[in-house]
């Protein structure tokens, strides 16, 4: 349904999108994930014909967006990053305008009632858009994209500015739409991707870092078994003891979670179960274990690993991204692990796509 081939967009000598290729089959919901400035919006703007690519092609339902723009655009509903709303119109007038602009066929009233219902904005249809709250404006933007039930929906951060209840509502709407439409949506919110997308593309600096199902991504990143262990005792002594256990590849301190107890991330060699040796070694040294669990990689971690490139310049951005997700995961001071994972696993994985 959507085919993107060797897409490049250069601004000056900086590539915002750098040789991107992927396809989206009919009826799929594809998540587009990446840090700020990754090139998500740029890709979507090219796909919808707002800007032209420097090179490469984007095809929608067999129509090239540059060669047959009118046909291609008829298939697309686009919700841009900033919803394009005429502030001086009422919601209904605006949707009527979009209906006419898109040369939608069929009954106008029915089409508009339908999108009012889908975006749950029936109760504000007579209001001037200027007077709506940000969340409602976002929903009017979504309604606009849905008019005429286009085969392809391109949604740039569709849940931005909504409250948690609305977010869940809109996610369900999108999921429902996904049964009949092909959808690309971009987001910073990782749980959102696992909640609604069938496939994820993680992009960073205009390049694809990974492309897979949310589950698979989590699976293939967790092959190096890591443990999170909370241990009471002198930090240096604990580290010393842990490092002497057979099969332990790498140890670092995560953070102090309780008085006198630290959390440690212990990485084992492949195919080693180090839990028992770990227990005995620590017991012998008189260092009680308060808890021990597998360090599950969430999409957050995968995301961090794939998009980390080791440069210090990226760090503040990464922390901001983490803070944004409001996860419990705290930024690790020691990013060497992440870097290594990227070098060892991430890039290989990405390159064989």
């Amino acid at each position, binding site marked *: 349904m959507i085919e993107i081939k060797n897409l490049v967009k250069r601004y000056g000598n900086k590539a915002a999108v750098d040789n991107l290729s992927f396809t989206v089959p009919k009826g799929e919901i594809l998540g587009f994930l990446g840090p700020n400035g990754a090139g998500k919006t740029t890709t979507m703007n090219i796909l919808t014909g707002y800007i032209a690519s420097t090179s490469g092609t984007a095809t929608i339902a067999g129509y090239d967006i540059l060669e047959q723009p009118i046909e291609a655009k008829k298939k697309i509903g*686009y919700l841009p990053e900033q919803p*394009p709303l005429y502030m001086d119109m009422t919601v209904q007038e605006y949707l009527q305008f979009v209906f006419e602009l898109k040369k939608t066929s069929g009954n106008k009233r029915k089409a508009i009632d339908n999108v009012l219902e889908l975006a749950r904005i029936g109760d504000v249809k007579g209001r001037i858009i200027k007077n709506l709250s940000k969340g409602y404006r976002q929903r009017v933007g979504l309604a606009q994209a849905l008019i005429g039930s286009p085969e392809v929906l391109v949604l740039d951060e569709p849940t931005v500015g909504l409250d948690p209840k609305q977010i869940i509502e809109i996610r369900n709407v999108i999921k429902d739409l996904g049964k009949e439409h092909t959808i690309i949506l971009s987001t910073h919110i990782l749980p959102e991707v696992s909640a609604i997308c069938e496939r994820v593309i993680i992009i960073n600096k205009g390049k694809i870092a990974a492309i897979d199902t949310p589950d698979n991504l989590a699976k293939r990143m967790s092959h190096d078994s890591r443990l999170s262990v909370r241990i009471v005792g002198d930090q240096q002594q604990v580290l010393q003891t842990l490092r002497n256990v057979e099969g332990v590849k790498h140890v670092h301190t995560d953070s102090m979670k309780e008085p006198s107890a630290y959390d440690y991330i212990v990485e084992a060699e492949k195919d080693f179960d180090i839990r028992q040796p770990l227990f005995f070694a620590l017991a012998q040294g008189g260092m009680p274990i308060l808890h021990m669990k597998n360090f599950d990689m969430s999409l957050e971690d995968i995301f961090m690993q794939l998009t980390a490139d080791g440069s210090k310049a990226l760090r503040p951005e990464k922390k901001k991204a983490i803070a944004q997700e409001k996860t419990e995961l705290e930024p690790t001071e020691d990013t060497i692990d992440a870097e290594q994972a990227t070098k060892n696993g991430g890039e290989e994985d990405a390159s064989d796509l």
Partner: protein
Amino acid sequence: MLAIFKREFKGYFTSPIGFIFVGIFLFMAGLYFYVGNLATNSADIGSLFRQLTFVLMFLTPIHTMRLLSEERRAKLDQLLLTSPVSILSIVFGKFLAAFAVLAAAAGVTVLYTIIFFALGAHPSFAQIIGNYVGFLLMAGSFIAIGLFISSLTVNQVVAAVVSYATFFFLLITGWLASKTQDPNTAKVIEYLSPNSHYRNFSLGIFNVADAVYYLSMIALFVFLTVRVIEKRRWS
């Protein structure tokens, strides 16, 4: 194109701009009509319209300044350019809307000609028609220029100021031509002057070359506007 025309035309009257424009235009027209015709017992409709062409120069920048600039600032161009309509129909729809507002305002002045007849004066029909046709053609070319300038910036005020500068230059082309030594250069400058092409219309003389001048100005600037928008997608 119809959707864009309708939206733009209505937009003029949901913001103060449309009312300011039409209001000032009609006020000035009424003033000139009273002072130049009624108070002085003159049935010269040509002089009335010559004054109105100056009013046009001062009002058109306000009329056209937001046509494309405001939309781009509010990212509304994203909706238009990703819809299944050509850039030409977007631009032309906007041109027609601005033109229609102006034509409606000019339409009100038909009252004045009726007053002429009611008062027993009989200006020639050819002159009346000539003035209206000429005036509308001139208005069209000014709007096309203003539209083009508004496509170059996201700032309405900049668009208005640049339009004023452009119209001021066009205004003084006649004077420039008279000061130019080289007769050929003078001819070229004279040809560029919108006022020089209005003279015949104002006397009720239809000259194809004059109409061609205005129509090609419209075509040229509509085309240039399309090119600017097209070009920006590639930058």
